[in-house]
């Protein structure tokens, strides 16, 4: 069944909040552990892309 517009809008807000939270987490990690961030950068960015695509 097709989703109505309101449901889609709510999902969009929820989705972008999850993405925002993950971006904030990445920023915090960059400061907390810069050396390891460089190692994990690709992995975290991949996870962010996957989260954005959900």
């Amino acid at each position, binding site marked *: 069944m097709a989703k109505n517009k309101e449901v889609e809008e709510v999902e969009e807000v929820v989705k972008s909040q999850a993405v925002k939270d993950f971006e904030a*987490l990445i920023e*915090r*990690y960059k400061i*907390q552990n810069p050396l*390891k961030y460089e*190692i994990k950068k690709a*992995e*975290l960015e991949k*996870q962010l892309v996957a989260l954005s695509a959900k």
Partner: protein
Amino acid sequence: MSNLQQALQNALVAEKICKVDNTDLKTIENPYITATTATIQAVAGTYTSSAMAVTDDALSVDDEVFDATHVYDFESRTGNFDFMANFLEELIYRVSHKIDQFVLNKILDLSTGAYTTPAGGFTTAANIAVIVSNLLSKVAGFRSGVASDPFLVIESTDIVGFVQAQVASGYSYADAALNNGFIGNYAGVKIYVIRTGTFVTATLGTLTATNSGHRLFGISNLALYASPRGVQYKEVDVAAGSGTGRTGKEIVAYGLIGAKVWAPHAPLFVDITLS
């Protein structure tokens, strides 16, 4: 009085792989010397000297964990169970478990060794010997006693390959795996199994953990965690406000926590990326 059936509880492993400090210290200082290099030369009787570098390093207790609930007086009086004691037991366990999760994620974050498994990770039986041998090579060759007693912390979903590898690899391993019923040791490495979802990419107090899909290998008793006075609890009367009073007591379990891998030991802890 009967006891209530407790909720499922997970294994706690941090205390088995770390040194634990339960004193009242907020910080534990442990400055370290940077390795020097000796010079070899033809006999000349002369030498040059260089400064010895000493760097500060400290564990700081910066996080606290709590879990609380309320037991009404009528529940205590008329229940067939000792709610206060049973709830408290559960609260203390939940706090202990959160401390365990924090310590494991913190140690994994502080580790500087790195290894990526072959495709399939620990769930492919053929990978187990490859992974464990590679991990051991990361900590081999150090002075006696430095890198002894290695451990590996995996999640419950990883044991598929371990069990297959153990029962299929000859009588000795097969017997151990079958008779003991579970994985305890593989190639001299102590294996600890925690529930799936313990290593997380999430905020745990002051720690930003990025450990989902990662596992921990290291040397026992080199990392340190401090939990001043361990997990404590108290029962408190809830003050009656204007129309908001409650009978009974509030019960709370709480603990302070900090964890550290000292800088010279960080390479002995390996951040395993599952592939």
